[in-house]
């Protein structure tokens, strides 16, 4: 936690840098999605575009969480609470992977 006045002044600079990074990240997301020359993977939207877009978004959100929300120096308890939720979010995503493999319709179950 930045508490001394100097530390706060220094933090202000970091905030502005993060702001710049977020703006750049946003512009890059839009450019790779709209400019044909920057289209990665095959032509048009495909898995690579999705991965790149989500990677940029993840980077941006990490910046916001780490710097603006001070997660870069937080107490342990907060980490447990927040990353616990993130963990369950991914667990929820994994459930969809199960749905894709469709165990219920698997012929194994009828034998």
């Amino acid at each position, binding site marked *: 936690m*930045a*508490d001394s*006045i100097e530390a*706060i002044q220094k*933090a*202000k600079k970091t*905030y*502005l840098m*993060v*702001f710049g990074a*977020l*703006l750049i990240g*946003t512009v890059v*997301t*839009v450019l790779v*999605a*709209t400019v*044909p020359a920057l289209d990665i993977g*095959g*032509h*048009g*939207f495909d898995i690579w*575009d*999705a991965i790149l*877009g*989500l990677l*940029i*978004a993840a980077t*941006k*959100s990490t910046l*916001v*969480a780490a710097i*603006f*929300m001070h997660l870069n120096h937080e*107490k342990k*308890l*907060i980490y447990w*609470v*927040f990353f*616990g*939720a*993130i963990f*369950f*979010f991914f667990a*929820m*995503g994994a*459930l*969809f992977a199960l*749905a*894709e493999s469709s165990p219920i319709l698997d012929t194994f179950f009828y034998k």
Partner: protein
Amino acid sequence: MEIPYIVKPRKDTGLINSKIAIWLFLASEVMLFGGFFSAYVYLRLGADYPWPERTLPVLPGLINTFILIGSSVTVVFAWVALKLGNWRQFQIYMGITVACAAIFMVLKGIEYNVKFHHQAARLHDYTVVEGHLGYELKDGADTHHPKDGDYVLDRNGKKIEENMIRVVAEKVTFAVKRFHAPWVSEMLAEAEHAKSEIKLAADIKMVVEEGNEPVTLAKAGEPLSLDLLGKIRKAQLAALKHNASLRTDALRLEWKEAKDANPGKKGWQLASDVNIDVGALEPRLLTEVSTVEFTVDPPTRFLFKPRDIKEGAASSTLRDNTIITGAMEASPMVFHNLDAIDFQWLVMKAKEKGISPETAIANSWLMKNSEFVREAWAWHLVRNEKKQEVLNKRYGFKEDGKTPKQTLTHKELYRLGWKDLGEMGVETKGVKIGGVAKIKEEFMGPNYKARGEKTFPHLSVPREQIRHAAKFSPAWNTYYAIYFTITGLHGLHVIGGALVLLYYLVFGRKMFLSNPEWFANRVEVGGLFWHFVDLVWIFAFPIFYLM
């Protein structure tokens, strides 16, 4: 009440209580939005129709992203100002934050509004057409440039959207149990306006008390009213209740007798042929009247919204099971400006059946019936060839030297959106449009006034061709359903967060003077929520606008 550990951290956690509280809340929020984002993935992977990828206007979304990121910075600066004890600076930064939230919501409002006024229709052959519906015009009016006096008005003096289903009703049969009162009132008002009368077709005779003679509840010729329908419904409900309890009693008696006749028997099974003594029951039953018929004299034209009615040539059924007997008039859906022709779904269905896309498109109702569409499609094919050449230059060919490595997307191949039609208008018809009008289009969608009917023509689709139609609302497809769910929920968070921040801004002064540290902590907690709202948008923007 004294709230503990609001300024000084608790020893065991090392944190102030309000901070733990907001993080717990944010954790629950992660799960809430996470659930909806997972739903998005699920809906997209499981969609049985061409998912509308990259369909939203990018510019407003981009501006909104900038605005939210900017407000995230100003909200930390507001907190920093408090840490430094500078109230004036806090006011400025917090003011900017709240203003950003307002701009965000205004842009969102414009985006939503455009969607709610944009009509889409899927035809029976799975062609999708999009555009703006017009209002019904008087005969002989200029269809392209109607004046105020050219519109047909309904009895309330309102214009009639050309998406109504018109039925000349001769008879109306209500479902006694579940008629929808506002629709009955609407019919009554419409009939009165047309100087016709809705009268009961036949006497309603019902046994309303066990063992008594039937009484005449209503006589033929009695005018329709909610009271009358209500009276019949009341008698019907009473009869249903009475008869049901009689039948249940009879069944119970049967069961008791069977049990008494077979003492100690185990393993009872439900028989398919339980016979209660119908003959004995009959005289005790009350009369059930499930439908009641009225005549409309003279026959009157009623208008119904498509979603309220399942139309038929000679009789139609409303959603409350009311049957309207009478001929349906021509009730086309009229796009006063057609702005997209979409064969993606049709091609998908054709491929499933092994039909070539070209054949399917050539045989579609739209190609057969619209000169404009044929012309536009020919232009589209030529342009697509050029686009494919560009791709060939960039990606090259496969080993055989003939098959291109990359082909145009399904969307590029089979959809002509409003931007494409705009391009075509400029290229082939010399339609000119100014820069301001163009920028406006990025926010408000196709500019019909500036580009005119050469670019966005009329199209009248007969009712029998339409399978499903809706505005660009959740009713149109799962894409819009999840789009409105996530962005709507996010918008509510923006409003809620902004209200809290506004509260700090307007009512914070006193607390700032008496307990500045507590106030700074409050603003930090509010700020944490605000950053979270930004976080959600950081994901929502690329997912909805760019993928």
